[in-house]
């Protein structure tokens, strides 16, 4: 059933709605609830396909559903429609507004309505994509403050990698931080590329969500086994940044078992037809982030590698 969780009037002949679809079991209800959130960043679209595919599969075997599934595919409707990461017109990153304020400005009001509606979920999955600049393998990012509780849950979601990162004050205004501090375990998934849908990754995550729902007792249908993710802390991640401005072209053959000195890509100069730099892996490891957008400035991120 489609429910409007927040609405607000826009200046000229339009209303902004944030909606969710609530899917309830036909028969017995175990009382558990999972919430699938996406579209907080308007230019991250991987979650759109996940929201669709998840519901399509549920509807095909609805008799196996034993709990509540809430799907919130468009948290930032204006951003999604206008290819904007933040909230257009306010120039604000929606994921820096939580927990919001019901009495506050329009944007804070929307954030508070979202938090209120998500409260009571047993698990929340917030699906992000990478930006347009980088491709990411399916991964879950966890603030070390919540690692103990979240890592076991994250392992059920069929991702390749779980990155437990240091706490940072800047991240205290994210949806995940807010919900985790209110005892709604919330997992942040990052995968794919901004402005694109990578179906392979989406299907992989949908399998994971079914596995998690099965473990929670929400889904009694058959589920595929999940892959064993690599779990790491910050220390083992190395960042490769461009040493100069130019055009980046990937030479990467594989992501999973990279060897030290393997060529990752080149920075080229189309004006003079020269190779400006060759970027090689400094370690043996797993490439989990790779530059997608070719134009780079000095400092632009090219790759993140987990040392193995």
């Amino acid at each position, binding site marked *: 059933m489609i429910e409007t969780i927040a609405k*607000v009037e826009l200046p000229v002949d339009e209303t902004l709605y944030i909606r969710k679809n609530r899917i309830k079991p036909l028969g017995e209800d175990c009382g558990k609830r999972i919430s699938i959130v996406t579209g907080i960043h308007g230019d991250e679209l991987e979650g759109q396909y996940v929201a669709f595919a998840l519901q399509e599969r549920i509807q095909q075997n609805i008799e196996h559903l034993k709990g509540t599934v809430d799907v919130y595919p468009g948290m930032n409707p204006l951003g999604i429609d206008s290819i904007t990461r933040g909230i257009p017109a306010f120039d604000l990153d929606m994921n820096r507004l939580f927990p919001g304020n019901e009495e506050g*400005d329009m944007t804070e009001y929307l954030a508070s309505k979202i938090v209120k509606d998500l409260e009571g979920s047993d698990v929340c999955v917030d699906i992000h994509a990478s930006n347009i600049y980088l491709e990411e393998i399916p991964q879950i990012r966890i603030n070390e403050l919540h690692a103990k509780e979240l890592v076991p849950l994250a392992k059920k979601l069929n991702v390749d990698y779980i990155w437990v990162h240091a706490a940072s004050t800047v991240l205290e205004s994210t949806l995940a931080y807010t919900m985790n501090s209110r005892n709604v375990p919330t997992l942040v998934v990052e995968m794919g590329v901004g402005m694109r849908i990578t179906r392979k990754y989406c299907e992989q995550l949908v399998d994971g969500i079914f596995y998690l729902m099965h473990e929670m007792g929400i889904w009694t249908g058959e589920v595929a086994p999940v892959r064993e993710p690599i779990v790491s802390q910050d220390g083992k991640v190395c960042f490769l940044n461009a040493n100069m401005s130019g055009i980046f072209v990937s030479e990467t053959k594989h992501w999973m078992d990279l060897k030290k000195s393997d060529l990752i890509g080149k920075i080229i100069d189309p004006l003079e037809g020269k190779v400006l730099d060759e970027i090689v892996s400094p370690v043996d490891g797993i490439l989990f982030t790779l530059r997608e957008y070719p134009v780079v400035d000095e400092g*632009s991120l090219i790759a993140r590698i987990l040392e193995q």
Partner: protein
Amino acid sequence: MEKKTIFQINGLYRDDYRVTGYEFGQGEKSACVIGNFRGNEYQQIYTCSQLIRRLESLEKQGRIIKGKKILVIPSGNPYSINVQKRFWATDNTDINRMFPGYNLGETTQRIAEGIFDYIKDYTYGMQFTSFYMPGTFMPHVRMMKTGFEDVDLAKEFNMPYVVLRKVRPYDTTTLNYNWQIWETKAFSMYTTSTSRLDVNSANQAVNAILRFFAKQGIIQYESTGGFVSRVLEDADFVSVRTKTAGFFHCITQVGMEVEKGDLMAEVIDPYEGTVKERVTAPISGTLFFSRDTEPITYANTAVFKLVPVQE
């Protein structure tokens, strides 16, 4: 006056990105003033240009105190100005959310690091900045409550107001916050405008800075005018919101005194031209911030901030 390139990044097809500094006097790093980091902050650069003009003349008259050095950086981000993008154009990041920076990090982290490394040892730091929402302000000096803030010192600009802001999580990566943590006495300076030039307000800010320099023994300068600053905290402001959305017909002007119940603005139905809402003053006070630059308003959106009449 000495003009220096203090940081640069080579461009692929564009000219190099350069941060240019103007130094006056020699000796200890006394005061640093920086203009824009965002591509719509024209007034911030303009104000610095007027300060540079005045300092050049004072230097020629031998009025920079011996052993004191002043650095003015009119723009921390000419690249965004020239393409009229608010943030760093290739990745849409905000340099003023990257401090203290990281020299092996991403482009804007490197820029922040390059600039911060050059300016972090100054005794006094002043940044002309802008609010995330467009609008018009009463001129003021703003500082964050980091525990290092010096309110009495801020009053020595004699700007109409000194505003103390509670630190929010996302403030910790701004220049002002990091300057304070590195024990620079840091102030954010707000003139009335951002994306349009207000010559009078820029001159008022230049005078405030010169007055401040004179009081700190950095320059020799006789100043007239100025205000006894009133100190305000976040909680002192009263926000006035529109309940509805539509055309924003603003009736009041920043700096005006309003009485409780006075009409401040109307929201006009965008198709039928009727008045949808009359926005009235909830208290008596001075209009401190107004979104009068905007033709439309959203619902539940703060359009004014009022400072209550002093008891």
